[in-house]
């Protein structure tokens, strides 16, 4: 059981770190006005240049960077403390993951129906966040048993 929780935490950590890297790459492109390497043609550029990608004036990848950084730090902290506070950390992670899932879902809908362009990195990041959310739930269920 414990081994399973440890393994899930490792996966969350790796996925969160990958999310940090993706968000940082896309954010630097937003801030420097440079092209984004994109598997979906010019979709990333359409997304970068759309006002929808700046909710409250903040570039969308900045939200991703903060969220994934939080998840990375929390999953790291879980390895240092195996006491009762571990559950608190997991609740924090769940909070971030719930916000993350809502955010990526909203943004994917915006990409499809308003911007009409898909950014590869946003799509990968959305899938990443869904998996992290699923793993946090799984981890919570396992730690309750």
């Amino acid at each position: 059981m414990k081994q399973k929780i440890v393994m899930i935490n490792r996966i969350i950590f790796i996925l969160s770190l990958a999310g940090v890297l993706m968000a940082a790459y896309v954010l630097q492109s937003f801030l420097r006005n440079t092209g984004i390497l994109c598997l979906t043609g010019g979709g990333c550029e359409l997304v970068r240049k759309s006002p929808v990608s700046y909710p409250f004036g903040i570039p969308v990848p900045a939200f991703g960077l903060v969220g994934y950084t939080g998840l990375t730090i929390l999953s790291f902290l879980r390895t240092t403390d195996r006491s009762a506070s571990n559950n608190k950390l997991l609740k924090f992670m769940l909070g971030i993951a719930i916000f993350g899932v809502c955010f990526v879902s909203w943004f994917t809908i915006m990409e499809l129906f308003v911007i009409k362009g898909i950014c590869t990195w946003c799509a990968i990041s959305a899938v990443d966040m869904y998996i992290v959310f699923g793993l946090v739930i799984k981890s919570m269920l396992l730690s309750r048993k």
Partner: protein
Amino acid sequence: MKLTSESKFFLGIIVGTILIVVIAVILLSRPQKPIEKDRLITPATYTSGNKNANVWLVEFSDFECPACKLFAKTIETLINDNKDALLFAHRHYPLPQHLFSVKAAVSAEAAGKQGKFWEMWKELYAAQTLSESSVSAIVKTLGLDEKKFASDSADPSLQALVEQDKQFGVSLGINATPTFFLNGVKLDIGKPDDLKRKVEEALHKN
């Protein structure tokens, strides 16, 4: 806070990742080497302005791209205001999501065969939402020989020219339009005003 062997393993990954990011930042922020003029402006490339100007601007563009249309007005102003000091060149970069973009680029080349590339360039951007009928209307407006235009548009060599431009753009790492090169250096700009400022700075220096 007690570090377990698992924590140390995680820390190792974090440190490794930070190192990779630092190396990437250093590599990405190195100044770019300018691309030679004869690679960016080939004998087949349409240009406007003074061919011997010290300042030359090359655009990779798609006639159906809304941002390209926005920039086109600024480009026209820059060319008109600096006829002797600036050379502007158009290279095709039709995007796959714009279904008529390749045909539009070929249409511009076909109009060029009748000496009206830049007139077509202007009209294609103005129309933006392009189709066979909108291009036919432009052909009529410009007073082009319709038969010659139709046969030139079907000429595989013009399609190959457009494809060559696109492939060259891909080889330069271009993945969006419009992409500009000012005196061979790729510009990192977002708005037409940024382009105006960069070109005017270069004109002032030369």
